[in-house]
């Protein structure tokens, strides 16, 4: 099993969600996060004093998938989140040893 984590532009969330549903993903966790990569922040001005804001708002999407589905899910996210502009984000996966569904106690791939 793998945990797929994607950092995407906030306005791409609906596209990514639709793409994940299209490849059969049945659940996901989404959080509002902030950070920066090659795309830096912006400037704000208050009474003539200029401030730099380094962290930009992003969305983090997390999906648990079976090993066999991981590559397809990553591809689906990348194509849905792509705009070609700097700051499109990143997608990565890590191995997961155990997953338990809280309601039923099912373990492993059955819990996905």
């Amino acid at each position, binding site marked *: 099993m793998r945990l797929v984590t994607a950092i995407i532009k906030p306005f791409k969330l609906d596209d990514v969600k639709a793409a994940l549903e299209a490849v059969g993903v049945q659940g996901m966790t989404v959080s509002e996060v902030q950070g920066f990569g090659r795309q830096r922040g912006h400037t*704000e*001005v*208050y009474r003539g004093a200029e*401030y730099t804001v380094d962290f930009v708002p992003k969305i983090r999407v997390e999906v648990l998938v079976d090993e066999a589905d991981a590559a397809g899910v990553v591809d689906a996210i990348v194509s849905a989140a792509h705009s070609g502009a700097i700051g499109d984000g990143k997608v990565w996966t890590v191995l997961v040893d155990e997953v338990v569904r809280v309601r039923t106690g099912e373990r492993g791939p059955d819990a996905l």
Partner: protein
Amino acid sequence: MPAIDSGDTGWVLVCTALVLLMTPGLAFFYAGMVRAKSVLSMLMQNYVCIAVVSVVWVVLGYTIAFGSDVGGGLLGGFRFTGMAHMAEPVPGYELSIPPLLFAFFQLMFAILTTALISGAMADRVRFGAFVVFAGLWSLLVYAPLAHWAFSPSGWMVQSGMLDFAGGYVVEINCGAAALAVAIVVGRRHGWPREAMPPHSLPLTLLGAGLLWFGWFGFNAGSALKADGLAVQALVNTHMAGVGGLLAWIATERIRNGVATTLGAASGAVAGLVAITPACGYLDTLPALLLGVLAGAGCVLAVQLKYRFGYDDSLDVVGVHYVGGVIGILFLGFFATSGVNPAVAHEGLVYGGGFGQLGRQAVGVVAATAFSFLATYLIARAVNAVIPLRVSDEDEDTGLDQALHSESAYDFGSVRSMGRIG
């Protein structure tokens, strides 16, 4: 004493309520500019001024400001202590409104002026110490200066210095006091290296709107009659606010490349500040010009604190002191008896020479020196008994939780909040 006029009385009653509303307006103007963790403390400092200054004014402040002069135009006597003898005329005035109404109209000015100082020491002052400071300040600084520049027997009025609605008494006074308290209290931790941007500009814009609305009562009400002069003062007030708004955002657009909402609100207030002493002595177009000068002047002046290193957090000096000085000096150029027969010496552009400008400037020095020194001494004295500054830990936590056990905003996040009492 002239007969009571119902129109004049009705108008000044309404203006009294309008000026009261300026203090909540100021509270929100300021509260939007502080950080989210100290919003309530800023609102509270302003609202508590309404209460504390009212008590002080009724007991002693009014009689010191407007009682019969006890010598040299410096202080009023004690005849009106506790609002006694309100059937007697106000010394020096020919009013067609009840003296008690005059006393309460003037109270609203004392409240607002005291509340204005809070902006210089945002996010770091203990509530109890502020309450004591506010009460003492309204009695020992506001009331005497009101006597000097508002009471007809005050030495500034006697010397021919013009201040229609509070350039010396309100704006220069609160600005000089703000500088003094900013120095006594010291900088916020992290200032100016750390960014401390406004947490809610919508609140600030709402507050600025309420101030603008209330300012009609402040300035036009200072005519103390419902007459043509009140109308001219209202028109001038509005046009100066307009000029200030436009000039500030235009200057910002040139300097920083953007026109900001905070700039629009600040510019309007700067224009309104500058017109306060001048609204009853100017024609309409000079009032617009004054607003423009104030808007452009104050947007540059608010940068000075970074150069000099004093943390006047919400720019009381840069907007109120500088705007007040601009308005006071402007009278040396544009005051005219054509608008108000009380103008004894025409301004420079009306052929009056430099005399009035010189008088106005002497007043700036006197009001600044008195307000700054007296405020500095009061703040140091209060600080010696009840420290003005909160602990480092409380400043870091935020004054809302540390001083008032409340939070301004609850977005229903995970807080595990349960009832224990």
